Structures are given as structure tokens and as C-alpha cells.
């Protein structure tokens, strides 16, 4: 299993907002453990999906130069369950971004209907060192994440 919880970006406006899609499939191992008799998409992994969507949006806003770490889940609320065959969309926008950190708000959609809210805060860890040092290379944004957003950035340049 790969630790990537979005399949593709559907919309991406640099520095502003993004929409990512996740198709939930019974071929995914985790659904068989959560739960075998009644598989549902764990809310924690939907928080992670939103964190990846919003994290890439925040990272791209500073050209992937900052190490963007999820620092706080300000709000996570889910009103309905998500099951295999459903399509999730993570809609997120940047509410606030500074050299230190960023705040995003987001809606979780299931087959076009809003079923949840996930508001997050990210830290740019090199700007919040507090005496700690981190490796120079950007271990947060690996090739896979950047490739997801690449088509939108190429279109922008054209």
C-alpha cells in the first residue's frame, strides 16, 4: 500500500483552492479491516486525504520550498459514512498563509453531496525551528505528490 490518499486533482488554482478526487474501492486492503462485514472509509483517512490535498496546495504556494507539516486539525466533522463505490472529493481553500504557517478550510463531498468539514493548520517547520534542525532535502514533497499537481502547473505556464 502507498501512503497516498488522493487519486488526482480535478481543479487546482495555485495559492487559492484545489479539488482532489478519491475513488473508494473494495480492492483496498484497509476497508477489509474497517470492517470486514461492513466496510466503510475511515474518517481518519479522509482527514489524511484532505491534509494531502490542502498540504500540496499550501506547499505549491511557496514553490515546494517549505517543508509543510500538518500541525493541527482545527475541525473534523463527518455526518455520513463513505462506502466502496463512492467517490470522495476534497474541496479546500487557503484561508491564511504566512512565512510560518497556513490555515485551510475544506469540505468533504460524497458523490457530489457535502458530508463533512475538515479545517486544518500547517506549519512550515524550517520557520518554526525552536532550536531543532531538519534535513535540508524536502522530505515532505516527494515526486509522487508533485506529479499529481504537475498537469495544472504546466497548463498555467502555457
Amino acid at each position, binding site marked *: 500500500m502507498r501512503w497516498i490518499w488522493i487519486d488526482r486533482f480535478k481543479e487546482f488554482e495555485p495559492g487559492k483552492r484545489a479539488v482532489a478526487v478519491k475513488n473508494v474501492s473494495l480492492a483496498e486492503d484497509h476497508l477489509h479491516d474497517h470492517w470486514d462485514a461492513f466496510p466503510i472509509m475511515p474518517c481518519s483517512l479522509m482527514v489524511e486525504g484532505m491534509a494531502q490535498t490542502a498540504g500540496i496546495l499550501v506547499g505549491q504556494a511557496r514553490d515546494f520550498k517549505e517543508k509543510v507539516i500538518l*500541525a493541527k486539525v482545527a475541525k473534523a466533522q463527518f455526518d455520513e459514512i463513505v462506502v466502496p463505490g463512492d467517490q470522495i472529493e476534497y474541496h479546500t481553500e487557503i484561508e*491564511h498563509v*504566512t512565512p510560518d504557517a497556513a490555515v485551510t478550510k475544506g469540505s468533504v463531498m460524497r458523490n457530489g453531496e457535502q458530508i463533512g468539514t475538515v479545517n486544518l493548520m500547517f*506549519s512550515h517547520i524550517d520557520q518554526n525551528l525552536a532550536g531543532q534542525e531538519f534535513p535540508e532535502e524536502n522530505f515532505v514533497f516527494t515526486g509522487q505528490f508533485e506529479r499529481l499537481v504537475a498537469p495544472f502547473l504546466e497548463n498555467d505556464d502555457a
Partner: protein
Amino acid sequence: MTETEVFEIVKETLVEALALDDDEVTAGATLTGDLGAESIDFLDIVFRLEKSFDIKIPRGELFPDNIVNNPDFVKDGSLTEAGMAELKARMPHADFTDFEQNPDINNMGELFTVQTIVNYVMTKVAG
């Protein structure tokens, strides 16, 4: 804007930022000790106050940084005279009465109370 009005908005802001009950937020409550704030929450609180009051809060103005990691300001785990003078100059919005008695840096949290935030915001909305 009166101090009572400012307090009510600060209270709402803290209730949301720290997931608290209304009655937990009293003027004398300390952010870390009584309200359970962690380091990232301080930044979150600053962002939310900026939005709630439509003000700008420059980094380090409400919650000063670069004090405890400066060797001129801290000796044997306590603030030096120079450190105390610097902190007082940078936090005119805080009440130093208790902290001055025992300026152990572990007690610095006593300075960051709900009233400290209210005092700070008052200087911003008044000006």
C-alpha cells in the same frame, strides 16, 4: 469597542481555537496551564484574532519569541535582569506581578493569560 466587548470576542476565539467550554475562559486563565494550549495553538490564536478583530499582529508582538533562547536573557533557568527588562518592554500588555517574584522560565506561561490578550487587543482596536 469596550473591554467587555473585546473580552467576549477573545473568549469566542479561544473557545473555537482550543475546543473549550464557554465557562472555562475567565480573564485570569492561563493559556497553557488552564486552557491546555500547545505551541502551535499560539499561532492559531494569532490568526484567529487577526480575523475576529480585523487587525494585524506582527510576529512576536503578542507572544514574544527569541527570549528564552538568548543566553543574555536566561541564566540557570531564570530570566536575568536584562531578560526581564526586555520582556517587560515587549509585553506592556502583561501583568508581571507574580512572575517577577520567581522568574523561572518554566513560569513564563503565567504571563500568557486571557486578560493579556484582551489588554493587547485593546491597544490595537483603540489605536
